[in-house]
């Protein structure tokens, strides 16, 4: 039986690589995409999520529209410099055919988890507002969610959107703090590992040889993302592998080594969005998060290429 997942996403260039990889993986059954702001505003990411399910004939997978704003903080720092104003590298793709379902993202998450108790993994690769809303409205789902595997945060390396914060957590630090206290198992795939997985120009070239709808789309939307990584991090055409690493974890968790530790999220001031691992358990007691600390980079890259180049 393939693993049932819901991808909560703000597509997004690396979201696109992640979602197309997931949709092409027989180990995973994508029950739906839920949209959120982050790489672009929610209106835009919802359209992109629809484009992604339609890209290779997965039109039957529902897309539920998520929150337009963070739980409590102001909406700021939309990453149009990273992913383009349209979240798709400024490529101005044609409008999708389909529409989001009537249910909001949080309602879709609640209903789906309750329909398959103990079976669904939530895979948020954007800010955690929808997940937090679902947990707040229906706390009973926490014991019914099999696991939350999230892309976000960092406990051992510098931030990306600020010196201390990773962007997904920064965009809704309160929501992240709620998720880090959820009673279901939570796996954090953060910058600690995603910055170790580097997609090089050579890697992309090999990927693009496949010339299928997925790799053709990635090829088209990639330049803005590469340009950002070069301008900001001096990577000369290479990029980090954020969201796709979370999907790789879902397919083959053995590619990662995790450590179990309580994680706290700062919600105020300069360090807003900073995720702190309480290694020596000095703060108030809190459930542990499984934090990915080591990764088999070539294993992740090979896996993604194998799926996308089919």
């Amino acid at each position, binding site marked *: 039986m393939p693993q049932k997942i819901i991808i909560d996403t703000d597509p997004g260039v690396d979201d696109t690589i992640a979602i197309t990889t997931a949709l092409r993986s027989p180990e995973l059954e994508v029950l739906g995409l839920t949209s959120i702001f982050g790489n672009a505003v929610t209106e835009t990411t919802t359209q992109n999520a629809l484009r992604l399910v339609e890209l290779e004939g997965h039109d039957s997978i529902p897309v539920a529209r998520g*929150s337009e704003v963070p*739980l*409590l903080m102001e909406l700021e720092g939309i990453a149009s410099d990273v992913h383009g104003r349209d979240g798709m590298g400024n490529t101005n793709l044609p409008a999708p055919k389909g529409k989001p379902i009537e249910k909001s993202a949080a*309602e879709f998450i609640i209903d789906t988890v309750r329909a398959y108790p103990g079976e669904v993994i939530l895979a948020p690769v954007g800010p955690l*507002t929808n997940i937090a809303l679902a947990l*707040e*409205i229906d706390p009973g789902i926490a014991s019914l969610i099999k696991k939350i595997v999230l892309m976000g945060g960092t406990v051992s390396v510098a931030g990306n959107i600020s010196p201390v914060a990773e962007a997904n957590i920064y965009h809704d630090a*309160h929501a992240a*703090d709620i998720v880090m206290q959820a009673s279901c198992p939570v796996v954090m795939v953060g910058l600690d590992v995603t910055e170790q997985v580097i997609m090089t120009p050579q890697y992309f070239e090999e990927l693009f040889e496949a010339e299928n709808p997925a790799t053709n789309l990635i090829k088209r939307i990639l330049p803005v993302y590469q340009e950002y990584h070069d301008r900001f991090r001096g990577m000369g055409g290479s990029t980090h592998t954020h969201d796709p690493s979370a999907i790789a974890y879902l397919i083959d968790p053995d590619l990662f080594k995790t450590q179990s530790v309580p994680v706290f999220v700062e919600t105020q001031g300069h360090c807003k969005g900073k995720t702190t691992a309480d290694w020596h358990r000095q703060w108030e007691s809190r459930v542990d998060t499984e934090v990915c600390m080591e990764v088999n980079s070539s294993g992740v890259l090979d896996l993604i290429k194998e799926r996308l180049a089919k």
Partner: protein
Amino acid sequence: MRKFWIDTDTASDDAVAILMALRTDDVDVLGISVVAGNVPAEQGSKNARYTAELCGKKTPVYMGATHPLMREPEWAYFFHGNDGMGNMNYPEASLPLQKENGVFAFIEAVRANPGEITLVTLGPLTNIALALRLAPDIAKKISMCYTMGGAAVTLGNVTPAAEYNIYIDPEAAKIVFHSGIPLLMVGWEHCMGDANFSADEMKMMRSFNTKYADFTLDCNATAIATNQNWLSEPGLALPDPVTMAVALDSSICTERGSYYVDVETIGEATHGMTVVDKLGVTNKPANIEVCWKIDIQAWKNLLYERIK
């Protein structure tokens, strides 16, 4: 018929407010959503269902959020009794609890009746904040929101700075106050002092000899005692019913104004404080209205009418 929705952490004064709405002939209460506050939401929903049944109504009662957005709950048993109803331990109502979550039911009701619903909030604003995040469009589809909460001109009650409903979930209050909902804040101060029911007035209410008057006084037994012993107030204070009275007859609020109002969520001593910029020193546009004065006799007369 005027359409109402009541969001409540049903304890004793909430119950009286619900009774007032349910016993108003030209008001149709479409639903009651219960939130964690005075008592856990499950107990609150029992109390709300008992109250509806007492009034001979089949009003749908929904359970909503069971804890504040970012904080641990703090129950008000000390004020309302262990059942929230003056330790009357009323029997379980036969009116069933609706299966649907109150947040979703509220969103559906507003969307199905755009521009028509008067919302009356009697507890922490968790449910309404969650609904606004899920469905921001409803802010403009609510005709008016009357909120029992805050303290604009006097001291707080649970802390020197803060009133209970706002203190329990200040983050939710901040969301609601800045959402664009047309909202009148009816602060705690309006049930104090002369707005209390004196011993003589309570004796008169008892002489009505109706189940509604008895219920009003009985379920508030611990509230009356605590109000007098702890707050040194003259008699029975009914914050939620004052707000309901204003919602039922807006002329009972005799002085109101629009201001920029924010909610303190961080302060060391002041979290939950409602900060009203009456002088306009922040230069920020007004977001809600504040009730400054009520017609005390009119409020009391309205309650008398409903429990006779």
